[in-house]
């Protein structure tokens, strides 16, 4: 930056330049708090501050300018200083020069020698001033050196420094005094003169700066540029004031100047980029340090610390001015932006409002209306506000510019307020009538939608109704239908026809609606028309099909009725005929069981009669088959698919024929069977007669014999022995009769094999004969046995023949059925007749029971004559036979209770004696002797008794 170029501060352009060039630097160093404060202020406050700061900045810049005007007060080198001072100055100046030259990448060793050619001098000036000097001469000649030194001196002179008595020749010649004087002049002009605090001289300014900066440090008192700095605390305080982190000031002591000075110089060299210009010893070791050297050193500190700060202060003030401009520029930009946006929005919106192409659907139109409503409610109002704000902003900006003496704002082309107003006008124009158009269009669409919906609904209903109707009408169901089905189908079809007629109205309505839709220019007219056409075509087709079906149904009905009539006739005649055939078959196959010739002859006669009816039946059969053939012919001729069979009967011609064949087959079979049966019956009759002839002889013979035997046993002629002889003869004659029985058995076997169960020629069956024969045999055997037993009984019991006869007479008397046995009651009566007193009370009953248990031990309920005689002989003779035997033995034993073997052998025949000895148990009584036998127990045992 060069303050020299800061020209007329009143010109805004320059102002702007400063801003652009410095803003970043200033801002980076600027007091952050200050900026923040500045930014946080509202606009109202801001204006005041801007006002104040603007003038303050201008004032300060003016001041700065004045201060930096090249004013030179003392340019002559003070030679009054001693050589010490001179060498100190030499080192300080060299260091100062090097601190600047190193920025250009060079150094000097000897200040008196190294500036002689003028090149490094020019370089130094360029670094210090930041400006370019005239191009140096490259030659090594003296004239070149003088020229270059002069250029440097001219530049210094151009900065308002009067270089009194310093000529180029002296510098080129290496005049030390001249050279140092020139350097001091440069230092004063460029390092110290810049330091100005409240319009004091450069030196005073530097001093005042030092005093103000060190004021807070009580042990530092700067009054000059020599002894005040001897203790080094001044340098340390200056550093600590600005960079407190570099020096621990509290630890420093006033009485240790060496440490203080070295600390300050080292820190400055290391952190502040200030080269070491003085040695601590140089300061401490002298009573009064060199003023110029100290000033040069301190000025370096000043530049290090204060340079930026000053720029800050200035920049802060400038900044405020710039902020106004910035704000205005922002306002201008905002205006431009807002205007552009608004215009863009208008530009976009107008075509949308001008678009009056109608939408096809209600929904789309309503969406449009919705959009328009959104536009009016949501989108346009903020734009209205924006437009208003734009005008306000424009006016505000212009006022501000006028007040701050700035040129008026001129918006870019086409973004004038008037432009915006024009555009807005167009927008309103486009908007006008849009809503009305929308509503009209919606109304139209509504009507169309309504009509179209009506059309669709009616069409849908109609289509749903017609759905499958064609198929139904084309159905050939009547071909397989029965008559009743056909009648039902006809009724159904009639119903359908009336249904169809009823639908005429709907079809007409559909056509009318389609027409209206066409007239109203419905967007989807083509599809409506196509659908309408389809419906109409289908309607015509349905009509034609209906007619066709009606005819077909009627024709079929007529055919089926004829067939039905035939079926009925068939059924009417087939049923009885079938029944007749079944009956005939049944009769023909009827297994007859006949037992007589008469019966078989009757069957033959009936069969002959039946055969006579066959030709008539065959005629009937053919007639029935004729009916069936007629039906078949009709079916074939008219192609009636008679799926159903004859509904009136299950009988079919095949069945009739099969049965007829069967009947015809059965007739000769029957003939044969009848002939066979006739022969069999004749044979049977012969067998019957054969059997009967014999049986009729044998039966009476057996009966006769039985009676004779009965008579013999009952009549009791002669003695029992006579009877026995007589019976034995009888038995012999009976046994001799056996072959006749065997022959009869043979005949009977034949009869049984011929399955003859009856025989009218005789009342005797084989079983009768057999029973009779067996009875005869058993009777004769039993009778013989009875007689024998009676003989035994009579002999054993000593019953007389008279007594026996008496018993017999009594027995026979009560044996009323001549069975040869007596029942209990008969027996009782018999006993009573023989004098037994059996009272009709409990005791009598008891007595009779006892008797019955004896005569009928097996409880058969009957009493045989033998048992009767046994009982009577027991009852009438000695009642206790065992006792009798015992008494007899007692007699033999000589009244002893036992008997000896010798006694038995002596008294009885040898075998009977042995029998007794073998069976008699030894006698165990108290009076027993060896060999004693118990005849008592033996006696009782003989009768099945024992005394216990």
């Amino acid at each position, binding site marked *: 930056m060069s303050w020299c170029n800061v020209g007329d501060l009143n010109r805004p352009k320059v102002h702007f330049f400063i801003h652009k060039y410095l803003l970043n630097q200033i801002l980076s160093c600027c007091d952050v708090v200050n900026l923040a404060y500045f930014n946080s202020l509202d606009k109202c406050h801001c204006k005041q501050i801007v006002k104040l700061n603007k003038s303050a900045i201008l004032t300060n810049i003016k001041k700065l300018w004045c201060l930096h005007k090249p004013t030179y007060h003392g340019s002559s080198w003070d030679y009054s200083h001693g050589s010490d001072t001179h060498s100190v100055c030499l080192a300080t100046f060299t260091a100062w020069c090097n601190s600047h030259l190193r920025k250009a990448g060079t150094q000097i060793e000897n200040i008196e020698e190294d500036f002689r050619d003028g090149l490094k001098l020019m370089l130094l000036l360029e670094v210090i001033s930041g400006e370019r000097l005239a191009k140096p001469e490259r030659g090594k000649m003296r004239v070149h050196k003088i020229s270059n030194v002069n250029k440097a001196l001219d530049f210094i002179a151009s900065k308002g420094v009067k270089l009194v008595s310093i000529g180029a020749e002296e510098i080129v010649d290496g005049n030390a005094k001249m050279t140092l004087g020139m350097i001091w002049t440069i230092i004063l002009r460029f390092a110290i003169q810049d330091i100005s605090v409240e319009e004091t001289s450069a030196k005073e300014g530097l001093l005042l700066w030092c005093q103000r900066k060190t004021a807070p440090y009580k042990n530092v008192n700067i009054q000059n540029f020599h002894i005040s700095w001897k203790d080094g605390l001044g340098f340390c305080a200056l550093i600590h004031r600005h960079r407190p982190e570099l020096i621990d000031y509290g630890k420093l002591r006033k009485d240790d100047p060496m440490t203080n000075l070295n600390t300050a110089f080292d820190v400055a060299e290391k952190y502040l980029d200030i080269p070491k210009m003085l040695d601590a010893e140089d300061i401490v070791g002298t009573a009064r340090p060199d003023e110029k050297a100290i000033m040069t050193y301190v000025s370096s500190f000043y530049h290090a610390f204060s340079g930026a700060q000053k720029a800050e202060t200035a920049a802060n003030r400038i900044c405020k001015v710039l902020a106004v401009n910035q704000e205005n520029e922002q306002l201008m930009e905002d205006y431009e932006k807002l205007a552009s946006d608004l215009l863009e929005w208008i530009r976009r919106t107008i075509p949308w409002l001008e678009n009056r192409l109608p939408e096809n659907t209600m929904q789309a139109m309503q969406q449009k209306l919705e959009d328009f409503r959104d536009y009016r409610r949501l989108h346009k109002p903020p734009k209205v506000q924006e437009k208003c704000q734009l005008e306000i902003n424009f006016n505000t900006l212009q006022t501000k510019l006028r007040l701050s003496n700035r040129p008026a704002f001129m918006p870019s082309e086409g973004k004038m307020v008037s432009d915006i107003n024009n555009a807005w006008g167009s927008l309103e124009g486009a908007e006008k009538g849009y809503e009305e158009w929308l509503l009209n269009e919606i109304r139209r669409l509504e009507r169309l939608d309504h009509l179209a919906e009506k059309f669709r609904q009616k069409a849908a209903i109609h289509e749903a109704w017609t759905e499958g109707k064609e198929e139904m009408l084309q159905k050939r169901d009547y071909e397989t239908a029965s008559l009743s089905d056909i009648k039902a189908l006809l009724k159904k079809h009639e119903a359908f026809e009336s249904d169809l007629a009823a639908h005429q109205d709907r079809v007409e309505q559909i056509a009318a609606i389609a027409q209206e839709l066409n007239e109203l220019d419905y967007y989807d007219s083509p599809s409506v028309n196509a659908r309408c056409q389809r419906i109409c075509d289908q309607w015509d087709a349905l009509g034609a099909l209906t007619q066709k079906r009606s005819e077909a149904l009627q024709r079929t009905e007529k055919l089926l009725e004829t067939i039905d009539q035939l079926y009925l006739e068939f059924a009417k005649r087939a049923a009885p005929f079938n029944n007749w055939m079944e009956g005939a078959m049944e009769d023909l196959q009827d297994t007859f069981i006949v037992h007589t010739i008469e019966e078989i002859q009757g069957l033959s006669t009936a069969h002959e009669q039946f055969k006579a009816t066959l030709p008539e039946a065959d005629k009937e059969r053919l007639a029935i088959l004729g009916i069936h053939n007629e039906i078949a012919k009709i079916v074939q001729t008219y192609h009636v698919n008679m799926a159903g069979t004859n509904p009136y009967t299950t009988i079919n011609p095949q069945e009739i024929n099969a049965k007829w064949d069967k009947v015809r087959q059965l007739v000769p079979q029957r003939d044969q069977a009848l002939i066979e049966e006739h022969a069999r019956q004749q044979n049977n009759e012969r067998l019957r007669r054969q059997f009967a002839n014999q049986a009729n002889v044998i039966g009476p013979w057996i009966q006769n014999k039985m009676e004779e035997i009965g008579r013999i046993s009952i009549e009791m002629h002669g003695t029992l022995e006579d009877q026995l002889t007589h019976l034995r003869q009888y038995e012999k004659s009976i046994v001799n009769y056996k072959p006749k029985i065997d022959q009869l058995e043979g005949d009977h076997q034949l009869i049984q094999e011929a399955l003859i169960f009856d025989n009218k020629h005789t009342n005797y069956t084989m079983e009768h004969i057999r029973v009779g024969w067996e009875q005869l045999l058993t009777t004769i055997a039993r009778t013989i046995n009875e007689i024998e037993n009676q003989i035994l009984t009579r002999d054993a019991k000593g019953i007389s023949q008279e007594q026996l006869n008496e018993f017999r007479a009594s027995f026979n008397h009560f044996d009323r*059925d001549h069975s040869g046995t007596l029942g209990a*009651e008969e027996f009782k009566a018999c006993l009573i007749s023989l004098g037994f007193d059996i009272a009709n009370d409990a005791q009598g009953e008891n007595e009779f*029971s006892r008797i*019955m248990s004896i005569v009928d031990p097996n409880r058969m309920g009957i009493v045989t004559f033998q048992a009767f005689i046994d009982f009577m002989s027991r009852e009438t003779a000695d009642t206790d036979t065992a006792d009798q035997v015992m008494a007899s033995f007692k007699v033999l034993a000589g009244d002893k209770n036992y008997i000896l073997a010798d006694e038995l052998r002596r008294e009885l025949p040898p075998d009977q004696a042995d029998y007794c000895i073998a069976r008699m148990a030894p006698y165990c009584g108290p009076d027993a002797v060896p060999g004693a036998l118990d005849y008592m127990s033996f006696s009782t045992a003989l*009768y*099945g008794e024992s*005394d*216990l």
Partner: protein
Amino acid sequence: MSAYTVSLPGPGPWGFRLQGGKDFNMPLTISRITPGSKAAQGNLIQGDVIVAIDGVSTEGMTHLEAQNKIKMANYNLALTMAKFISLVVILQEIIVPVFTPAVV
């Protein structure tokens, strides 16, 4: 047939005569009772049938088996007796009505 039990104190002789048995085709019957004997005192009735001896059924028993069985009883003799109710009575009831029509 009503049954009753007679217990005769032993030992024998018991004083009754046994008759019948399977081998005689006749039920085991008390055929005689000796007057004043244990059997007479024990209410044994002549003509009644012995059903069981000392609890053993007499069915299928021969005369000798029954005799031995009674002889074996040294102490008490327990006889289960059946009152001889004539089968005739039963037969009358059953058979007579059948015969009756024949009689008439």
